[in-house]
């Protein structure tokens, strides 16, 4: 039973080693793109079952983000990022439930790799700040972090530190949940493979959905707080 925090290398790439999590995340990307392209190539007004299923997920998440944000125009800005994050993180999380987790070396959830989660968090928070600057104009945006008043300057620098902490917390939360879940599944399967891992598998199904929802909702909430007009 080998459990390592770093992802296991599958083969040497051009400049960097290709790990199993990178391969699987690439497969998720291809699968997602491919399925959406082929389903929506001939989109009908009376949808087929698959098209209906995709649209149902889309509409439910859109209603949820609408209820959190309130303003339809802001929803239109943040919804692509939030929904993409939700679907990608959900699919990545669900990979740990595929049978053969400790046995087949290629199976490792991309979100159990700190590189993947950190990249997602940095990119998402960067995009949120880009949206904030675009909406508030740089002068008003920077007023939150720097000020002539020393007290507000101190508070502003703390806000800046908190932005970095948000990135770390987003990535480590997803990584910790998923890596611990995988370790739990592997260890429980090695202890007694029949019936004993069942409650842990159920827990991991729940954790997969909840963590995907948490990641995307937190990005929406950070977007709301970043684009809120600051008042003194």
């Amino acid at each position, binding site marked *: 039973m080998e*459990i*390592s*925090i770093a992802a296991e290398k599958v083969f040497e790439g051009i400049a960097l080693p290709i790990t199993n999590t990178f391969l699987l995340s690439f497969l998720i990307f291809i699968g997602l793109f491919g399925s959406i392209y082929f389903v929506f190539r001939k989109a009908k007004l009376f949808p087929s079952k698959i098209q209906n299923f995709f649209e149902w997920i889309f509409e439910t998440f859109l209603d*949820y983000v609408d*209820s*959190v944000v309130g303003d339809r125009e802001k929803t239109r800005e943040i919804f692509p990022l939030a929904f993409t994050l939700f679907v990608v993180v959900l699919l990545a999380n669900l990979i740990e439930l595929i049978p053969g987790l400790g046995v087949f070396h290629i199976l490792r959830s991309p979100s159990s790799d700190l590189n993947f989660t950190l990249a997602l968090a940095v990119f998402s928070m960067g995009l949120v700040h880009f949206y904030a600057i675009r909406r508030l104009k740089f002068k008003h945006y920077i007023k939150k972090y720097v000020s002539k008043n020393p007290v507000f300057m101190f508070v502003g620098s703390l806000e800046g530190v908190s932005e970095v902490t948000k990135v770390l*917390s987003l990535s*480590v*939360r997803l*990584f*910790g*949940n998923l*890596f*611990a879940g995988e*370790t739990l599944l592997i260890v429980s399967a090695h202890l007694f493979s029949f019936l004993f891992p069942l409650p842990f598998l159920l827990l991991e199904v729940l954790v997969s959905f*909840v*963590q995907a*929802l*948490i990641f995307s*909702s*937190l990005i929406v*909430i950070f977007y709301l707080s970043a684009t809120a007009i600051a008042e003194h």
Partner: protein
Amino acid sequence: MDLTILKTFAAAFAIGVGALGPALAIGKIGAQALESIGRNPEATSKIQTAMILAIAFAEAVAIYALVIALIIEFV
């Protein structure tokens, strides 16, 4: 007291103590959410959403402790 024994103790201690605070916090959040749902059943879905978010924040601290324990044990 050689290093592997100390490592095991350190990892167990890290996650053991580190899970206390979040457990209490999650209990408090849940209790408060249940009470407010009882007082105002119409707002259940709003309260539920906010509760899940707050629980995720509190749980994150336990996850940080878990990650430290895993790093101590496996790295």
